[in-house]
């Protein structure tokens, strides 16, 4: 079940981290927007992303008793801040807004949407020139919106994780644009999306 998927993906990520990065570690070419060392060589980098996500959870959306029209392709926006220390491993946080899926009822008038606000601790490493991988873990604050016989909103926290890979094209010394492929999994409730985003990358503070 989903436990296996977590292990598969986390394992692949760890291996990707380790194998590809072992090459990157030897050269500074793996660094995103390398710049002259300032002070300790630390920096803060913001990533603002927007795109689309597709619901991929093996748990499915609804059970067969409900006749529904499900929309699995939905907008995905995220915001991330990473601390770039003097080694290749980076640390940061990410939040955003994920719409996992929505559906309407076929036999009557009714609509349900399942959304989530992630709050994740993340680690990132450049694995090749301009290529980065990210993994993170934390909480997804889920919100169910129901419009059937009245409007009802309810929330629930779900532990989860994420993994992502991005390619960054530098624009200026501190600014870049990136494309990011992202897997976000509120694993405790078995809800996951695969997203593709366009990303603005801004190294906004150095010391």
């Amino acid at each position: 079940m989903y436990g296996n998927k977590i292990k598969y993906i986390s394992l692949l990520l760890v291996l990707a981290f380790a194998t590809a990065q072992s090459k990157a570690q030897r050269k500074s070419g793996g660094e995103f927007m390398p710049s002259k060392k300032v002070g300790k060589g630390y920096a803060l980098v913001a990533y603002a992303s927007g795109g689309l996500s597709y619901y991929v959870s093996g748990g499915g959306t609804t059970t067969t008793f409900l006749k529904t029209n499900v929309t699995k392709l939905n907008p995905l926006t995220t915001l991330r801040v990473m601390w770039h220390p003097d080694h290749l491993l980076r640390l940061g946080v990410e939040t955003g807004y994920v719409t996992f899926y929505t559906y309407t009822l076929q036999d009557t008038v009714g609509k349900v949407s399942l959304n989530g606000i992630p709050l994740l601790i993340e680690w990132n490493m450049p694995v090749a020139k301009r290529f980065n991988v990210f993994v993170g873990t934390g909480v997804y604050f889920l919100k169910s919106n129901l419009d059937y016989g009245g409007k009802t909103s309810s929330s629930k926290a779900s532990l989860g994780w994420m993994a992502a890979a991005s390619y960054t094209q530098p624009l200026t010394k501190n600014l870049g644009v990136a494309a990011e492929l992202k897997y976000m999994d509120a694993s405790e409730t078995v809800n996951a999306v695969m997203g593709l985003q366009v990303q603005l990358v801004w190294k906004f503070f150095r010391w």
Partner: protein
Amino acid sequence: MTKRLPLFLLQTFIVACSLFSANAQQPTTDVIPRIYAKSVFFPYPMEKHWKSSIGFVLTTMPQEITEEQHYRIPAIDFHVLKKVSKRWYIDGRVNAQIVQNMLSIGPRWATPINKKLSIAVGDDIACWFGFITTEGFKTRGGGWLNTPNISLGYQFNNKILLTIKGEALMNLSFKAYTGETPVANTHRLFSGSAFSIILEQPLYSHHSLTLGFRAVYTDFYWQTWALFETFQRNIYYPEVIVGLIL
């Protein structure tokens, strides 16, 4: 039940065989190459006399066990290693959630197999204890666990260390009391197994980070002692391990 230990030994044997047959080079007996990266999980003979890390272990409990008492409190994880001899060291850990805590200690024998690969075998004995107060009555529980383990390490370069670890989980004792009245003491010796994959590498300055994932399959997870769960099922407990190597 008792089928689990042979299974674990078989798995361990397969791993060991695949390693040794794959690597014709024999371990160097006298000179152990220096390893530059900091680590606490990576199976390698120690150079320094002491090593330590501090971090947390986050577990999500299965709701079939915890139901509405579902909590997700990380345990503080303090890990310390003490060199004993060229290939021997002691591995000690403290996992603390204040109301329930576990201390473990055990010897490790570690050796490089070749330039990249190394291995360690060990056996940890752990003591856990916890307290909860319900309606003015204090319930306390405690027990002993034993975990024979094997770790395989791979150095991607001098800075990136990957460890794969397998453990057999043996539940030596479990006792719980309300006041002085015993309320539980049943347990099964071979309670499951655990498999970990751990990455250790530099984070900032001279500090390194441990990032790990441990898949625990057991019919008794010490943090659920107060639920007095009776299932004989190897239930899955995923653990995320994060530590800063000091």
